[in-house]
């Protein structure tokens, strides 16, 4: 599954990284403590979070995550957006709360486990 399908299926808004939407998504991770995501986010994971701080972009880059989805209609901070665009990190926005969004991603076939 690639990001474009997910954006289309869940009605997400794209804030940055348009050209990387063809990237393959291999799984998902949800978390708001960046230290935890650094420790557990795997390459190809789509990351669901409420954090809008610029450090999120660095975490996504460092762990080669597929992209970031901000929940509850939260918008990235100006510097976050600028960094995401500069580094071509996919930054998406959903109006859904975390529980609902993760449930729908799971319904589309994404898993938090890797076999």
């Amino acid at each position, binding site marked *: 599954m690639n990001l474009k399908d997910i954006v289309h299926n869940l009605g997400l808004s794209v804030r940055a990284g348009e050209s990387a939407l063809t990237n393959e998504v291999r799984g998902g991770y949800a978390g708001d403590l960046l230290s935890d995501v650094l420790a557990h986010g795997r390459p190809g994971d789509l990351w669901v979070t409420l*954090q809008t701080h610029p450090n999120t972009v660095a975490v996504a880059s460092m762990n080669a995550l597929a992209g970031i989805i901000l929940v509850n209609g939260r918008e990235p901070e100006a510097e976050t957006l600028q960094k995401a665009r500069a580094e071509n990190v996919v930054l998406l926005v959903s109006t859904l709360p975390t529980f609902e969004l993760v449930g729908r991603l799971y319904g589309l076939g994404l898993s938090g486990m890797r076999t």
Partner: protein
Amino acid sequence: MELRADLHLHTCLSPCADREMSPPAVVRRGREKGLHVIAICDHNSAENVEAAIRASEDAGLAVIGGIEITTREEVHVLGLFKDDRALQSVQEVVYENLRGENDPEAFGEQWVMNERGEVVRHSARLLIGATGLSLEEVVQTIHRLGGLAIAAHVDRPRFSLISQLGFVPAGLGLDGVEVYSDKPPAVPEDLAVVRSSDAHRLEEIGCRYTRFLVERPTASEIGMALRRIEGRRILS
């Protein structure tokens, strides 16, 4: 002069602190523990600072006015200030950005006291909550008002800059970081490191402290030591 400073103490205004942490009791214990300087840093409020400063007048111990601000990322940042006006201003900014009312049963009582340890009133604000201010906005606000910005307990698993945001953002401009354990923290080497008790109970006061080489027991001198200016520095 060499000064022992514990730069992160709560009082009974913080809902999670013991009631026995009255401003005069905190000052008294600080002196008994051989501290020369303490900083009062309650959660999102500085309303017990004045009482602590008054209680310290004949105590042979200096009190620095401070506040522990919770950013919207739930990072705790200490602001230490040279004068009361700056402290009032930072408190106004924090209150403008802090929503909710305290539930004493869930979070604890928030006592504002005078220098004799008598209850003046309760704070009704949700002091345990997070402000709507970003980490950068908090550091900038502290600096705009001439204060020192120190990231609190960076090596703890919650409410720390490292737990919440993974690493110290480049260009943040902190004056220092506070650590809890003896291990060197995962922060840039040029950042000053201080040890403080983060005491919520009387017996915790002074259990960790920092030795400074400074000329006077003031926030300005501490700031110079953090930046190693004109011979001022941290000894250990």
